[in-house]
């Protein structure tokens, strides 16, 4: 591989690294804190542009054979993750934004990029770590209350357990198949012996932990609640998307054996029920989003049940839609003190104070609930069609019924905004201009996808 090849294939990652370094350098050089917003935004935009460009020209390369390769799916995945982080950046801009936040966010994206191009479990593990480590800090970074640190700690400890489990799985893969490449994992998937099965299920369990699938989900509600709004948005959208997309890539063309299949059916299904039900009675918005994200992780995992060629499309589309709508909802939250704006009560009567935000949140909620004509429906349709196509009709039906349980929690938010009188303590203000920009951006994308889902599907 020529140096140019290396450069080109990993261009998005290079750009991100460059951005991190640039911010670091400016931070070190200058005395007073400088606003790294523009720099980080440009970095992400450039990385996304690079990914889209390379996707468009159909670049395919393996600069580190057996470890790192790129292709259409990798670029598409990266582009969409980077794209999703743009509204998150805008959202972050309106609160606690500093150079460290920017660097950590970009680092995490860097890890996501690695995961989406990984060809070996080594690279996957490393990408996952680079993705996760900044998150612990991101959670605590919006430090306004002791709970933030608590949230970070819980995330960190359980994340550490997850890392160990993943490593155990990788180690067993090595033992079972003699290597750490994706082809070895595929062999383990296909193999029926104890080590292979243990390896695969432990790797999957680790991914479930990172994606917050019941019963490995316990960190998520607490971490989301403890984190700041942009950090929550980032975790719920980009991180979750990266984890699942990486898992799809890891599975490749392989399907799960019957034992693993049962796990891949039962736990996501349980997540849907658990997340949807537990979200029903939440009083904090971020916590609600957390439980909702647990349920959505369930839907995303369902895509793995589908036929290999359909998985990426289903997951990618779902991630785009889910990410955009979640960000949209979070971006439209009224501004104010953190504890106050997080309370669902603050949304009461929002329509009368700020109709635009209320409508946008309502759109986001309905899309998350999978109600047409919003794109969440198309995404859900795609997922469950994928499941059904692989012959698991009953499973798809169960999944749909489980997804039905989630409708109420989203309606409840709408009910608060439109049908309840304003709460007496609602000292919140309309969302700020940058957050509004994030909302508008997300909304535009949501609308576009809603009206022309075919275009996005075609692009994927």
């Amino acid at each position, binding site marked *: 591989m020529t140096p140019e090849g290396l450069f080109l294939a990993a261009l998005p990652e290079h750009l991100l690294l460059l951005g991190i370094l640039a911010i670091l350098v400016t931070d070190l050089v200058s005395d007073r804190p400088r606003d790294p917003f523009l720099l980080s935004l440009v970095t992400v935009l450039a990385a996304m542009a690079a990914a889209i460009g390379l996707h468009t020209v159909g670049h395919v390369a393996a600069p580190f054979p057996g470890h790192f390769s790129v292709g259409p799916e990798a670029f598409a995945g990266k582009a969409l993750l980077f794209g999703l982080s743009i509204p998150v950046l805008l959202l972050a801009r309106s609160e606690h934004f500093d150079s460290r936040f920017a660097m950590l966010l970009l680092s995490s994206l860097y890890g996501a990029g690695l995961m989406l191009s990984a060809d070996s479990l080594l690279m996957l593990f490393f990408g996952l770590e680079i993705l996760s480590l900044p998150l612990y800090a991101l959670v605590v970074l919006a430090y306004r209350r002791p709970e933030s640190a608590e949230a970070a700690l819980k995330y960190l400890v*359980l994340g550490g357990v997850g890392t160990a489990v993943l490593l155990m799985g990788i180690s067993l893969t090595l033992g079972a198949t003699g290597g750490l490449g994706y082809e070895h994992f595929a062999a383990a998937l296909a193999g029926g012996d104890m080590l292979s099965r*243990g390896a695969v299920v432990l790797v999957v369990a680790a991914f479930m932990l990172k994606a917050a699938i019941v019963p490995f989900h*316990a960190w998520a509600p607490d971490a989301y609640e403890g984190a700041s709004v942009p950090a929550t948005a980032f975790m719920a959208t980009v991180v979750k998307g990266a984890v699942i997309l990486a898992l799809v890539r890891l599975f490749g063309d392989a399907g799960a054996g019957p034992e693993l299949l049962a796990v891949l059916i039962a736990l996501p299904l349980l997540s849907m029920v658990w997340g949807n039900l537990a979200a029903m009675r939440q009083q904090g918005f971020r916590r609600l989003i957390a439980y909702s994200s647990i349920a959505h992780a369930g839907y995303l995992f369902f895509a793995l049940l589908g036929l290999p060629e359909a998985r990426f499309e289903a997951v990618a589309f779902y991630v785009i839609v889910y990410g955009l709508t979640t960000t949209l909802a979070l971006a439209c939250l009224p501004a104010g003190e953190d504890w106050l704006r997080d309370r669902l009560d603050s949304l009461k009567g929002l329509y009368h104070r700020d109709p635009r935000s209320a409508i946008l949140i309502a759109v986001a909620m309905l899309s998350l609930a999978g109600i047409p004509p919003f794109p969440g429906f198309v995404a859900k349709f795609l997922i469950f069609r994928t499941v059904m196509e692989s012959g698991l009709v009953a499973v798809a039906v169960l999944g749909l019924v489980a997804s039905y349980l989630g409708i109420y929690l989203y309606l409840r938010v709408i009910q608060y905004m439109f049908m309840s009188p304003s709460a007496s303590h609602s000292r919140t203000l309309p969302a700020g201009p940058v957050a509004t920009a994030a909302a508008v951006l997300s909304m535009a994308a949501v609308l576009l996808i809603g009206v022309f889902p075919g275009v996005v599907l075609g692009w994927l």
Partner: protein
Amino acid sequence: MNGMLTILVLLPLAGFLLNGLLGRRLGPAFVNVVGIGLPTLAFLTALWAWRTLEAGGGAPIIETVFTWAVIGEYVFEVSFYLDRLSAVMALIVTGVGALIHLYSIGYMKGDESYARYFAYLNLFLFFMLLLVLGRSLLVLFVGWEGVGLASYLLIGFWFQDVAKARAGRKAFITNRVGDAGFLLGMFLIFTAVGTLEMDLINEAFAGGLIPVGIATAAGILLFIGATGKSAQIPLHVWLPDAMAGPTPVSALIHAATMVTAGVYLIARLSGVYLEAPAASTLIAVIGVLTAFLAATIALVQTDIKKVLAYSTISQLGFMFLALGVGAYGVAVFHLFTHAFFKAALFLGAGSVIHALKGEQDIRRMGGLARRIPWTFATFLIATAAIAGLPPLAGFFSKDEILWFALASGQGGAVWLWALGSLTALLTALYMFRLLWLVFLGTSRMEPETERHVHESPISMTGVLVVLAVFSVVAGWFALPHYLEPLLPLPELQPERAGLHMAQIIFAVMLALLGLLAASWLYREGGKPADLLWQNLQRLHRVLLGRYFVDELYDRGLQRPWRWVSDRVFLRLGDRVLLDGSLHGLAALARRGAEMFGRIQSGSLHWYAWMTLFGIAAVLIWVWRYV
């Protein structure tokens, strides 16, 4: 001429619309002109139509107005059909109708809803004409339901009185029960024949291609419809209550015309019934029972209009008896004569009520003959007519009925005749009772009422006179023979063919006997009768309670239905089973949510344990065999 029948039908409709929309604003004069003028015009048109029909030698005139619906091969047309039967009906309807409109001017004077009254009355005429002129069962049904509506509206005319509004509702609902039967019969005929045109239906049945079973079923179902409209057992209960309406309405709708629609229907579809002897027998039995039982009830009623109402039911029973033994023409004949004398009776009663400022209880009347002579005279004539005294109208028609009940080759039987004769006796008895109690003897009126007694205006008495005249002469038209080409009279049973003269004499004797009995029992305000009833207390109670049919319906149908609706459907079904299970599921979801919330306890140790548990579980699962 084309359009003649359409004009005939539309005239009253125009009256309804004009009076209904403009009457209130334009005042009583306008209402009078429209309300009387249009029915009169309609009567003239009917005469003209009849003349045209006769000019054509009685060949039916068919007039298609428009096509209501075409569905596949089936065509539902709105068309009118005039033959002798419908011509007679149309003449009765418009003639008596016009008279009663005229009468109403005086009767309803000063009522605040004067225009509404005439509008309704015109509406009734419109639907009644649709009923009698409609060629297809569908059009007939439109009229059928329409007259029911008009009846409902007019019974509840003084709607602020809850009892009156209820009576209207009762009439409508009871009729609806019959209508359900009617509809089923109609459907059955349609399914069997493929058309609803009644002339074609008759032809089809006459052709003998339709199985007897279908004819019987259809006959019975249609008869159920007829029992509703014509107040036959068991659907007779609404008619006495219908007397809540203004008296002219009772005369027109609930005596002369609408209630005879059932008779008309069966006569019209005689082709079906000729093929269904079982259905015919049922009709005869129901008819004679109705006639008898209603007559017994009429014996003890104390409301002047109720007596007449039960008398109407009884007379309708006679008509059905005639229909049941195949003497369709005779039934129509009785219908024809009954229209006059019963209208005269009702209007006479109206005149009495008018004179007494609304008093209807015959126990508080008496001795009115001198005070209101015209009313008395006409009432007397009509009473004699209904009692069957020769040579008045009722004599001829009723005699024919009894004769055919005995001798008809299509189900004539001794017991039908015997019961019918007994009823005839009772008829004379209760009618003369009424006459005695109201007009003769000494006054039992409240002094306040008595002071105001006055004869009715000429518009009312004039009508009474006209009707009385017809009550005399109507029987002289040999209507059954006029209709015979259309509705042939049944063959006589050979062994009884010679008994006609004896039967006539016997009938006259019965009428006279009734007269004598009444004059004896009801002298001095009915004291002898009271003595008699004291000896027959139980029977008296049963009769006063009208055989408790209303109570039976209330306890047996209405209350159970309400109970089922309330307790079973609403409380058990909707609230407990359906909503209950729904709320149960919701509660389950809430419980689940609470449980999940408790599991998320905030303890890091516990979270780690859950993770451990999960890992152990998935490992055990995938390693469970090998």
